[in-house]
């Protein structure tokens, strides 16, 4: 089952009850707000696990950090799991220094992130058994 992202400028896809959102190379106000909108949209449409994949992200500025803190809040309010995956060392160090990593799960790869989702009690059992890996947007 697929659910295309409404924002064509952001890559996102759905895997079972989780949504994977891909951050751009520079996480600033513009790209951060796109991620925030997409995360909120996914939460509103019932996703209970959000994976933000930072594989392309080279730099995160302060507004990007602030927006991610807002995403953390939104996920907590919706009792959804939030996983940051594939961060480079610089981004990982920054998030750790600022304490963001206290509120999210970390994964070295997307597969690991998905495995963390399956381990989460907030994800319905058998979700991944359906093998639903439909593209949400560009992917």
């Amino acid at each position: 089952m697929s659910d295309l992202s409404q924002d064509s400028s952001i890559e996102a896809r759905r895997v079972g009850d989780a949504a994977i959102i891909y951050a751009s190379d520079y996480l600033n106000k513009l790209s951060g707000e796109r991620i925030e909108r997409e995360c909120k949209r996914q939460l509103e449409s019932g996703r209970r696990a959000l994976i933000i994949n930072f594989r392309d992200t080279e730099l995160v500025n302060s507004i990007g950090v602030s927006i991610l803190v807002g995403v953390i809040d939104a996920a907590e309010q919706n009792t959804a799991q939030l996983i940051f995956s594939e961060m480079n060392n610089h981004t990982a160090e920054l998030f750790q220094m600022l304490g963001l990593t206290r509120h999210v799960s970390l994964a070295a790869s997307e597969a690991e992130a998905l495995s963390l989702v399956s381990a989460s009690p907030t994800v319905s059992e058998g979700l991944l058994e359906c093998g639903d890996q439909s593209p949400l947007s560009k992917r």
Partner: protein
Amino acid sequence: METNNQRLLHTFAALADLGEQIANTADFEEMLRSSFHLLLGSVAIRRGAVAQYDRQRDTLRIVSSRGLEPAPDTDFSITRDHAQALAILGSSLTVSEATSEATRLMTEHPEMFTASEIQILLPLVVHDRLIGVVLLGEKASGEKFSDEDLATLSALARHIAVGINSHHLLGEVKRKAEENQRLYEGLRKIYRETVHAFAAAIDIKDRYTQGHSVRVGKYSEVIAREMGWSDDEVEGITIAGYLHDIGKLIVDLSVINSPERFSAKDSKEMSRHPSAGYEILSPISHPYADIPLMARYHHERMDGNGYPDGLKGDEIPTGARIVTLADSFDAMTTDRPYRKKLPLEDVLVDFRANTGTQFDPQVVSAFCRAFLNELEGKRERRLLNLLNRNYDNVERVSPMLTQMLVDLGEPALATAH
């Protein structure tokens, strides 16, 4: 990378980004929102708000917030003493002071904030005046605010304070400019009304030429517009037309109202009026250029045989040359005590005969074009509305006007008509 270096770099980047945001003067709300996000992100703070201080009402108004109960545009009171205390504290306060100020505010407004929701309060101060406050909740790390955090946040807050203050100042400058514009428009209106009153006074003195000054103003306006003058210049020459005969105020009433053609003595008396007009108008600061000169030179001729100074051709200001034609046109198209108004054809014959000697050819051309354009419905009926009071079947002079344009070297224009 060492954490301290990483933190330092993150702070520097935040400051650099903040400068860019503060420069966005086009959208104040967005500037504030982005700057506040930057501040929150610099230390990863989970919730907070920026509030602007209104010194007239002794209130703080939330202008940007995230994660706090009070929404933007919520007002809450602050005592003058408290505001002054915050202004004195400025942005060099300690963590303990910032914490106790936050506690004080939450205690004073339990209806606004839940316990511990705000951990620190940073005053926004510019030139020792409180501009607003930044209220900040807990850090994402869960750690307490350090002196280093406070130094970073205070530096960023100072920029936001300057941004807010600049916005205020810009707003104030804009308001002042609008107020000045209103005052200026008011003064111009008073000036125009005064000029109208003068024009009426001039014309009342001469019972045979009632309305002459106003008509000369209107004819001058039509000609100047046809010559491509700007709105301001057109308004100026209209005024000059209204005032061109102001010098008649000093001419003996019996001369002005003489039912006979002027004697040599009367002519001499009458010929004083352009210079007298100049003397009357010169001390006044007119909002338009050369109005006194247009009054002085409206009886000059292109061939140098006019008065008072016998100027020739280009020595006569263009405005005066326009007023000269407008003045002559009205004189010939209205009844005088010593003669009836001339037929329009005769007026045009007179213009053609005196173009280059008495009248400026370019001004005559513009007059003919304007007249033709009105006759053909291409322009608002200004000349015609004034003329139709005295003439029937004005349209009959169209061929004459066309021929005059040909004679004046504007065949293309004449053909177009």
